[in-house]
């Protein structure tokens, strides 16, 4: 067959899926085309490096400037400024913002096993909901494209006889609920899970491939990142589950040892910023992710904007987050205290889950 055009080779670098199978197969077996591909790659990398600009901007300041300019020319028509900070926050949550939990924490993170050479870099003490649209979620990098992900301890759930057995298995107290909400009856069943952990080892070679496939030129990796490892652990955990007549859970109370992260030496910020720079996420999403994870203590939990809303609350003085599905079928409240995440969820109202949460008693 004829050699594919230079344009086809160029697209192969950015969007391999956009190139016909026949062309891809031809290139794989053709020395001339492979040389052409390599040349295209060099030119693309050179151009990328030449055009690349560090363009960190102050959006607030820029908006003030534009506002002044529009006010100067416009008779009127400006929107009134949003009054309360609270409503601005809600607006921010509704817009297709933020995300990145899994990626960021996994990169942040590492194993609770904390072998001597593991440097603790992340410990969940707070949870911050981040609303993100489906479309933006798809822009998150798939970790497997940037290195090797090895699950060192699998998530394994199993039923146990009672609260005492659950406590013995996990070392966690199973909170007791004295006043069940209306519609929730009977005795709960108990589920436990052991600690789960995963190790992610960054690979520059893999990242380069993934970046090319996503249409980006891989920026130079920070020194020491290639080959460095990150461990994330979560658990053990325990859940008490109340069934409803049809077998669906009516309510669930769960406690899990909060996610923790460790690294073999590369600072969390270095890895996070680098990964975010590859992600294709809009800059405003990235900057919020950076803010949330900057202290190594706040776990950003993404909320699918199309399906969930979130609000802040408190449980006995501890800041908590209430998640509600837009169809009203599910409400959950989640908070972190002393390194343990507790959640109460069910087909309940916000008032009901908060009431259960505030009345939990340790056995």
């Amino acid at each position: 067959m004829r050699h594919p055009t230079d344009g086809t080779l160029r697209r192969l670098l950015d969007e391999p899926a956009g190139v016909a199978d026949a062309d891809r197969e031809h290139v794989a077996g053709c020395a001339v085309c492979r040389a052409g591909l390599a040349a295209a790659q060099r030119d693309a990398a050179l151009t990328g490096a030449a055009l690349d600009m560090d363009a960190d901007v102050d959006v607030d300041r820029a908006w003030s400037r534009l506002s002044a300019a529009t006010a100067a020319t416009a008779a009127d028509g400006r929107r009134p400024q949003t009054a309360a900070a609270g409503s601005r926050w809600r607006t921010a949550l509704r817009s297709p913002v933020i995300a990145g939990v899994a990626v960021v924490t996994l990169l942040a993170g590492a194993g609770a096993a904390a072998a001597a050479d593991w440097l603790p870099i992340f410990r969940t003490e707070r949870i911050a909901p981040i609303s993100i649209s489906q479309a933006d979620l798809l822009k998150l990098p798939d970790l497997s494209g940037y290195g090797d992900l090895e699950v060192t301890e699998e998530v394994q759930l199993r039923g146990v006889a009672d609260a005492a057995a659950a406590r013995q298995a996990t070392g966690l107290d199973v909170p007791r609920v004295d006043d069940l909400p209306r519609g929730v009856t009977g005795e709960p069943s108990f589920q436990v899970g052991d600690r789960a952990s995963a190790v992610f080892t960054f690979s520059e070679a893999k990242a380069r491939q993934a970046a090319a496939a996503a249409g980006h030129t891989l920026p130079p990796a920070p020194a020491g990142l290639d080959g460095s490892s990150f461990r994330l652990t979560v658990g053990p955990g325990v859940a008490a589950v109340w069934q409803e007549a049809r077998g669906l859970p009516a309510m669930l109370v769960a406690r899990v040892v909060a996610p923790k992260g460790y690294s073999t030496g590369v600072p969390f910020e270095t890895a996070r910023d680098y990964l975010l720079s590859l992600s294709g996420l809009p800059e405003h999403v990235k900057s919020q992710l950076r803010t949330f994870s900057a202290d190594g203590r706040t776990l950003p939990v993404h909320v699918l904007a199309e399906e969930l809303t979130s609000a802040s609350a408190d449980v006995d003085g501890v800041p908590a987050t209430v998640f509600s599905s837009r169809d009203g079928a599910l409400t959950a409240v989640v908070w972190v205290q002393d390194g343990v995440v507790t959640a109460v969820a069910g087909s309940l109202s916000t008032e009901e889950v908060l009431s259960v949460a505030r009345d939990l008693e340790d056995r």
Partner: protein
Amino acid sequence: MELVRGRAAWSVLSPGGRGLPSGRAGRKGEAVATVPGREAVRADLEQVFRAAYPRVVAVAARVLGSRDEAEDVAQEVFLTFGRSSVPAGEALGWLSVAAAHTALNHLRSGRRRAHREVAAGDGATVTPDVADAVVTLDERRRVRAALARLPRKQAVALVLRHSGVSYADVAAALDLSPGSVGTTVRRAESALRKELNRHASSD
């Protein structure tokens, strides 16, 4: 990254676009629809601005090599956008193309202010890349001069592609077939590389 579905979104960018120096890439005869009522500013301007501003600056900065100047271009583009009725869902794509055109116009018309050219990482922190694509400040300057000499379509395609816009969206923006976007981008990259090599060998 899919910015925009279909090409309708891009047709607003045309030589008739009010206040928008869009060059010759737009389709003729279609103008930016402006909001009825003189100088009315669209209600969603702040929301769109906050979401899209960093992206718009980044596109312009790739052309201009200067963040300050890129921010000037972004202001210009958003002022035009604020008076337009470009559908909100198509805003990001429209703004990206407008930023590329406006920045290229600045580059060409010599309307450049005396801005310091800033290299990513200011040179000192540029570490050897996997592709040995280390570019000095001087080379960046030459690349921008070359960018200004490229056919407009090539330059816009190149900048949008390196800003992460998909082939389909670049094609829609420039009225190209998706198949020819690669060819256009490749030609532009090849021209820029030759520009760098030419100087390197004459040094």
